């Protein structure tokens, strides 16, 4: 059994993991940059180490700093959270070489899943349906054009090393392909140091449905139902719910079984998410696997009653899963809203600065995952997530009402601070969301239709989670 876990992350997820460690009686080490002095998670930690300056690549993504911090504090495991080093197979391998248990899949599996086009091949080989597209990366504009002509427009160009909505571009006209391929390759080379791109059919009116899976070293692989993450702005999730409303139960079960078959074939271990697009006719296609805990994991915890982070730590220690597929009996409906320090009226630009009032909602079946308190500062260096507000209710209508109540209760103010709180409230009220007709295009359509203005950074460049 692991004894002391170093949490190689920050913010709410560092606090979430620290809480799981405390509840399991494990020691924990919290690391932070100079921009995150006195983080909330430190109050639960046995040791706190300042590992570097504000920029993430010199602190939370500095492998030597993290490994040294683990060594000097006697940690024997590393939990990477999400983002930062969480899907870096090289980091996972170095942890193992230094005698540290990496809380995640084996490094070779991470490497295969990190190559999004390779993941597509492997899942397809395991019998998981994938979207029409290129066989692996395309050689250049000519091949991309040929693939697009074969599968039909629009298509989406994706960086092999991308994922999580990053490094992708939609093309609607064959003549635009050469230019788009060059741009996407240049962007991918700059951001991921890997210029390879692949082509897939672009599905416009689909729902983003993802399956939570958990696997152990004994060969057990279980799915914990789905999350509907269709409410996105430019591939960044704003609201997630489970179960997916009006998705036929038989279809949801089929997708879940399919996801388990896919990850089992890879030798996956720990918590993962298999993402799918589901079209109105029920056609479902694999998108990618995230080999880490997700931001929206609480949604699944609320409906299943299973503590995913605890389970991650136990599985990493070599224990079998504490539940079987039959034990997973999702109940009721859970919704999560991500309240970000962003201004919807100005294209969702981040609004860093002081938070002088921060009163989170409470009440029945209401969970708020946040590391913020009044007096804290939203820094410019990291993502703009202020809090995840999660509610549970026996049915969806009650969950929506509960979420609207909770968001209304949330008091967060600061001199320059704008948040997505009110915008999320409008989504809850939207007839398409209420009726379960929402697709991944809903938020962008809402913005285009005269809701808050839609200026902002280029497409597909954003947070990985």
């Amino acid at each position: 059994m692991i004894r002391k876990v170093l949490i190689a992350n920050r913010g709410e997820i560092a606090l979430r993991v620290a809480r799981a460690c405390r509840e399991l009686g494990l020691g924990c080490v919290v690391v932070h940059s100079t921009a995150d002095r006195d983080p909330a998670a430190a109050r639960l930690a046995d040791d706190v180490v300042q590992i570097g300056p504000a920029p993430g690549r010199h602190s939370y993504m500095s492998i030597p700093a993290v490994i040294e911090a683990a060594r000097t504090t006697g940690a024997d495991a590393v939990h990477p959270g999400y983002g930062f080093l969480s899907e870096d197979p090289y980091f996972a391998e170095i942890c193992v070489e230094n005698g540290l248990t990496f809380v995640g899949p084996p490094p070779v599996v991470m490497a295969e899943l990190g190559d999004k086009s390779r993941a597509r091949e492997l899942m397809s080989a395991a019998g998981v349906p994938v979207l029409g597209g290129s066989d692996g990366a395309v050689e250049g504009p000519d091949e991309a054009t040929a693939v697009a002509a074969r599968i039909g427009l629009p298509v989406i160009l994706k960086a092999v090393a991308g994922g999580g909505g990053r490094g992708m571009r939609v093309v609607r006209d064959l003549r635009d392909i050469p230019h788009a391929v060059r741009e996407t390759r240049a962007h991918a080379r700059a951001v991921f140091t890997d210029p390879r791109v692949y082509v897939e059919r672009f599905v416009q009116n689909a729902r983003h449905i993802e399956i939570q899976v958990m696997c152990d070293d004994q060969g057990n692989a279980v799915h914990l139902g789905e999350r509907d993450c269709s409410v996105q702005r430019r591939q960044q999730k704003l609201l997630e719910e489970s179960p997916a409303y009006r998705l036929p139960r038989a279809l949801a079960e089929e997708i879940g079984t399919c996801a388990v078959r896919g990850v089992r074939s890879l030798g996956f271990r720990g918590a993962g998410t298999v993402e799918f697009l589901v079209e109105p006719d029920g056609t479902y296609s694999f998108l990618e696997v995230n080999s880490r805990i997700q931001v929206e994991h609480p949604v699944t915890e609320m409906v299943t009653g299973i503590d995913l982070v605890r389970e991650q730590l136990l599985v990493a220690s070599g224990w079998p899963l504490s539940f079987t597929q039959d034990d997973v009996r999702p109940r009721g409906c859970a919704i999560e809203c991500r309240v970000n320090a962003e201004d919807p009226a100005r294209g969702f630009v981040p609004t860093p600065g002081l938070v002088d009032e921060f009163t989170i909602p409470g009440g029945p079946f209401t969970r708020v995952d946040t590391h913020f308190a009044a007096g804290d500062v939203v820094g410019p260096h990291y993502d703009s997530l202020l809090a995840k507000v999660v509610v549970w209710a026996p049915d969806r209508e009650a969950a929506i009402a509960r979420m609207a109540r909770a968001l209304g209760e949330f008091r967060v103010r600061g001199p320059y601070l704008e948040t997505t709180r009110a915008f999320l409230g409008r989504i809850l009220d939207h007839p398409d969301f209420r009726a379960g007709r929402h697709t991944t295009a809903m938020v962008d359509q809402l913005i285009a239709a005269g809701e808050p203005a839609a200026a902002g950074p280029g497409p597909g460049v954003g947070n990985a989670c």
Partner: protein
Amino acid sequence: MSTGADRAVPAPRPVDAQAPDADSRVEAVCASALRMAATGGLTRLSIRHGEVSVELEWPQPQSAAPSAQAAPASELPACAAPGTTVVVSPMVGTFHRAPEPGAPPFVAEGDRVRGGQQVGIVEAMKLMNPVEADRAGRVVSIEVTDGDSVEYDQPLLVLAFDDTEPK
């Protein structure tokens, strides 16, 4: 390295002055910042030096961390006195005072050092990273012992400026 229950007040980056007039300006700002800091309970001190900017931060009353308030003033070593500078650790690792076990230390209290002179080693991932004095001065105190685990930006030693020697 500090613990969750007993957290030291973080040390600021050393004031790395290049021009003499910037020197005196930074020192004057430092001195007045110190007078403000003396009111106690300071949680953050950040000093920038092009165009000199000092930020002091006290805890909000409702979120005040008792340990931060209890930190004695002596735990503010950088700028601890006008005319001194603090050499901080460039990374997480293990501090070594000497080039090898049993060898004499790089420097001892009272020694004069040149700008750029090696004053210690921080070992990280089995690599020996030299730590150098950023300017000439006299070693006032060594804040860590040989073999200590150190974190990023942790004060290692305090130097008194020595303006009679070239920087």
